[in-house]
């Protein structure tokens, strides 16, 4: 009951912000349309819809990091959290209250991406449903990273870190926009050490019905999701005590 009340509030705060809607849904949709149009004029294997759709769907989740970080940072700065700390809400209810409502938002975003991709030419198959389901652990990782950043810094810094730095990192190091092996070296190694490229490869494998590498990529994503969630919980609790 308490968790539901707080989750509902967090969902409303995000959904009712027009900027969130514009970036969360509008940006991935525009990217898909734009790159598919380019692909029809100048064919690039990377931008074929089977490869592009999973990439854009995963990249779109970087906005969930921005949303969750902004929400927590705003709540901290406006003393809204201070008010709630004096209520019977338990620490785990705070974390879940932020995390849970953003998962269905992420799933909706992915569903819109894949639906549009089908309209563009992605073959309809059950794999799309599996790919959307697998987006759940991937989104937990992205949302938790946002909770972590939002617990550490203020709203202004969140804009820079999540809106600028993180979005670019997750774009460059994901293999969505260019083949990582073409750059190679330390860049490719760094990308392989981070979860973004693994999340994209996992989604691409599911959409294309391949099994190779699925387990490894899934394990990396789950591992990062677990680490980022644990770190977010610890930092949030530390900040709560620091009040």
């Amino acid at each position, binding site marked *: 009951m308490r968790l539901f009340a707080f989750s509902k509030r967090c969902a*409303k705060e995000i959904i009712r912000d027009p900027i969130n809607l514009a970036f969360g849904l509008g940006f991935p949709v525009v990217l898909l349309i734009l790159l598919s149009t380019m692909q029809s004029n100048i064919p690039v294997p990377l931008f074929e819809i089977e490869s592009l759709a999973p990439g854009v769907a995963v990249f779109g989740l970087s906005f969930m990091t921005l949303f969750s970080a902004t929400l927590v940072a705003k709540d901290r700065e*406006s003393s809204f959290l201070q008010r709630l700390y004096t209520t019977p809400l338990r620490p785990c209810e705070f974390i879940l209250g932020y995390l849970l409502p953003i998962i269905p938002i992420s799933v909706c975003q992915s569903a819109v991406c894949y639906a549009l991709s089908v309209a563009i030419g992605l073959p309809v198959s059950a794999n799309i449903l599996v790919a959307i389901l697998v987006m759940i652990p991937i989104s937990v990782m992205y949302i938790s990273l946002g909770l972590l950043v939002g617990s550490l810094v203020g709203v202004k810094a969140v804009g820079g870190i999540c809106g600028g730095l993180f979005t670019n990192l997750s774009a460059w190091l994901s293999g969505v926009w260019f083949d990582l092996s073409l750059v190679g070296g330390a860049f490719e190694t760094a990308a392989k050490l981070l979860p973004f490229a693994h999340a994209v490869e996992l989604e691409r494998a599911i959409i294309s019905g391949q099994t190779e590498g699925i387990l490894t990529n899934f394990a990396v994503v789950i591992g990062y999701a677990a680490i980022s969630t644990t770190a977010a919980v610890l930092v949030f609790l530390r900040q709560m005590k620091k009040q």
Partner: protein
Amino acid sequence: MYSIETNSLTKRYRDVLAVDGLDLKVREGELFSLLGVNGAGKTTAVKMLSCLAAPSSGGASVGGYDLLSESEKIKKIIAISPQETAVAPNLTARENLELICGVHGFGKDRAREKIADLSDRFGLSDILGRKAGKLSGGWQRRLSIAMALISEPKILFLDEPTLGLDVIARSELWDIISDLKGRTTVILTTHYMEEAEKLSDRIGIMKDGSLLTVGTAKEIMEMTGKERFEDAFVSVVRGCGV
């Protein structure tokens, strides 16, 4: 019977002594103001008493519960309206009130009753459907205090409730706060002399983390030999009144 009793309550942030050995007794139903200039330690004292910050040393009893070991019980009988309005901006005023009902575990019927009652008392009926972030400062403060009162707290902490409000909004809020007297123990922090004088049963004046004196406005004026409360405050803070 004391609602709040502190015993050498102290808070230190690294090199800064924010609250220094606070000894305070607040009676049930009393409106007690903590008055002081910026950085006096008022907000830190409130944060400790409302379980938001752990004391560095000392202790306190809040509503009969031990501050250090029974914070969960204390949270059930207190509420706070922080210095900032602390409302959810994209939620309507009604949804903000519903949220607080929800986090206190109220059922639908009880929540409806409470919201109707508080809307009536605070004159919120006309703005219930408006987004909280779009309301004026005065209305946000009203909403903030209404949110704090939803759980029917025995002790209410109001941190600078009229900060930044215009004269009319401040006067309206004073009426609301005065109305709480006798029913709820209110700890109010402010640096407005007039506010403390007009609203409080007793006033504690703080400076540099220390409580310099406690008494009614009249007692403090008599003690310092001043006719105006503001002069009495200045006298106490400058160290020539105690």
